[in-house]
């Protein structure tokens, strides 16, 4: 089990952090998705192909590296379809048709994944082509993604399909999201042309999504804690820095403890995804059950400790708070992860 970063992983972190600091600083995230940033993230840094196997044009890196990157995109509250495309890449790695994977690795397309329920029906399945119908109530980055990857029901079992979201028969409606930094869309498909990717993916896709999301959550909570710690060193009340009061300091210490544990769990879960598939179901459920909650609690307390300014629209605190809540419920209500954990423990 490997819980500490290698020299190369620390360099990767520094590179992504420096890039995002310059290309997507916090004041910019309210402007939403910037395709230019996504293009450079995929092109210059090659991050869209990070976990794509080398034979399909990617870097062939593992979840340990992916976690390092998602922690940084999370800390930056990066808008746009990077997480959604990562989700799609995780699912695409398990289907026979790898063409889309190459397109993602080369940064030609952004994608998203419908999950976890099966809401589409596929008709006229013939070889690689089909038409699909159905409504997806909430698709992550559905307005920004070019391609939707989804399971679909046929008369003969479940298959995986890909749909061009700008194509005919597709109606996309942007949803008003609590999270101001990353969008979701309602996607209606009415006989839309789809590409058949193969049979339904098994093999722990859901677990890998859980690990990837936990890495983003780790970044969100780290950035939130950093922000309030910095503020506690400059904000003065009653003639003292607020960080000198135990009422503040002790809460920050508890938040730090959560962060230390969350990082340990994310490193463990990423290691399990790479090296120990037998441990992955439990590690992934643990990652969502612990990190999802811890991230929201830290984001909440970071907002509260800012005082009144943290409740204002212009302050960034609510951006973290809202991203943290949105992430906590992104893969379903959190009890789902606790139930899976109970199951994997044989309880």
């Amino acid at each position: 089990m490997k819980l500490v970063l290698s020299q190369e992983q620390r360099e990767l972190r520094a590179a992504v952090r420096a890039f995002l600091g310059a290309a997507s600083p916090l004041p910019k995230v309210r402007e939403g998705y910037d395709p230019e940033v996504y293009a450079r993230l995929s092109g210059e840094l090659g991050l869209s192909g990070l976990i794509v196997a080398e034979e399909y044009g990617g870097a062939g890196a593992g979840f340990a590296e992916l976690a390092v990157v998602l922690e940084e995109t999370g800390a930056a509250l990066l808008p746009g379809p990077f997480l959604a495309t990562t989700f799609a890449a995780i699912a695409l790695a398990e289907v026979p048709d790898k063409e889309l994977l190459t397109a993602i690795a080369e940064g030609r397309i952004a994608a998203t994944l419908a999950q976890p329920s099966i809401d589409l029906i596929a008709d006229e399945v013939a070889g690689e082509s089909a038409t699909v119908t159905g409504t997806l109530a909430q698709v992550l980055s559905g307005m920004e993604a070019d391609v939707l990857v989804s399971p679909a029901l046929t008369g003969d079992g479940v298959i995986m399909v890909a749909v061009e979201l700008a194509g005919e028969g597709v109606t996309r409606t942007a949803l008003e999201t609590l999270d101001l930094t990353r969008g979701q869309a309602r996607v209606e498909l009415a006989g839309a042309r789809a590409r058949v990717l193969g049979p339904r993916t098994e093999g722990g896709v859901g677990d890998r999504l859980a690990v990837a999301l936990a890495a983003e959550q780790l970044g969100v909570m780290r950035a939130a804690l950093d922000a309030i710690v910095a503020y506690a060193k400059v904000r003065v009340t009653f003639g003292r820095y607020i960080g000198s009061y135990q009422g503040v300091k002790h809460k920050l210490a508890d938040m730090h403890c959560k962060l230390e544990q969350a990082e340990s769990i994310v490193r463990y879960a990423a290691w399990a995804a790479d090296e120990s598939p037998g441990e992955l179901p439990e590690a992934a459920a643990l990652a969502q059950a612990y990190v999802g909650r811890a991230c929201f609690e830290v984001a909440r307390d970071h907002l509260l400790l800012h005082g009144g300014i943290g409740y204002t629209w212009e302050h960034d605190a609510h951006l973290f708070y809202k991203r943290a809540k949105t992430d906590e419920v992104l893969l379903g209500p959190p009890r789902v992860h606790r139930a899976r954990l109970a199951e994997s423990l044989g309880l």
Partner: protein
Amino acid sequence: MNLTDYRRTARAWLVANTPSDDRPQGDPTARAKEFMAKLYDAGYSGITWPRQWGGQGLTQAEERAFAAEATHFTLPLYVFSIGLGMTGPTLVDRGTDEQRARFVRPLLRGEEIWCQLFSEPGAGSDVAALQTRAVRDGGGWIVSGQKVWTSVAQYADWGLLLARTDVDVPKHKGLTMFVVDMRHPGVTVRPLRDMSGRANFNEIFFDDVPIPDEHRVGEVNDGWSVAVTTLLHERLSISAGVGMGGQKDNPASVAALREVLDTSDPLVRDELVELHIRSRALALFNQRLAQETNAGVFPGARGSAAKLLLAELYLFQADLATRLAGPASVVGGHPLGHALSLAPGMALGGGTNEIMRNIIGDRVLNLPPEPRVDKTVPFKDLKVGTQT
């Protein structure tokens, strides 16, 4: 020898030499001393300590490897824990060569038992407020006062004693560290029963106990910096033992509770999941700290987070387990009732949870310190302990 071989050899040695759990009659330290001598002779005592003073001069990697193997055994090392974890490392770091030559090897070989004498009835979290006096007497010192919470003092040959040597300067600047002979007739050791009914602690009275100046550790009035060294070692030795095998014999662990509870009840199941989440989170944090240490990154004050989390976990799980087990847990010396009585100990000993949070805030997050009213005032003018 590579680490895998080292570990294999250590395991074989432990299998062959660890005494059985049967409690022998007579002196409880005899078996411990016998085992410790064997441990030393086999090269497993003081693994990272300097060779010159009797250690093995190896790295943290070997120590961790041995510790990992040792978690599978119950080693009778309790009476040496203060010497090995706190007072010994302090002498190695801060003692004179004469002191190291005199004390370190007998400690590592289990020939002498040590205790640590810092806390007093009026000086717990604020240990620098202590009132035990050491007064110059010719070439040496005479000590009078009272200490408390002293583990293994009833068996100890030597104590590491922090005493006040100057009351006319601020409190941190008038302390000096000494090695005191616990067998001197002026030393009275009285057992102190804690809330679990055990007497693991003692209170100690010093009535004009002489100490030669050669047993002074560090400079006169520089005892606080020596004490900080000791306390750092204390937190490390507590947090190093955390989480690895620590749940093994715990009646309130998930593994133990699932055997006695109805886990078909979804409410029970969810509580056990919560306990599992917290236990795993801390265990993984400790493993990460251990890996960092092996990679040469010293955890320092971050060890306080591990200690705080362990204390919180003990409180949480004993409370949860008794709620799950119901009325049976609070009668007839039930193991979970006993766990509930033990639980507050970890949150108080070795620094309270509040002190741990101060340390994390001040030294990990670098938050501004609390304003201090006692920092520049001469000790004799402070309101501390019995001094008004």
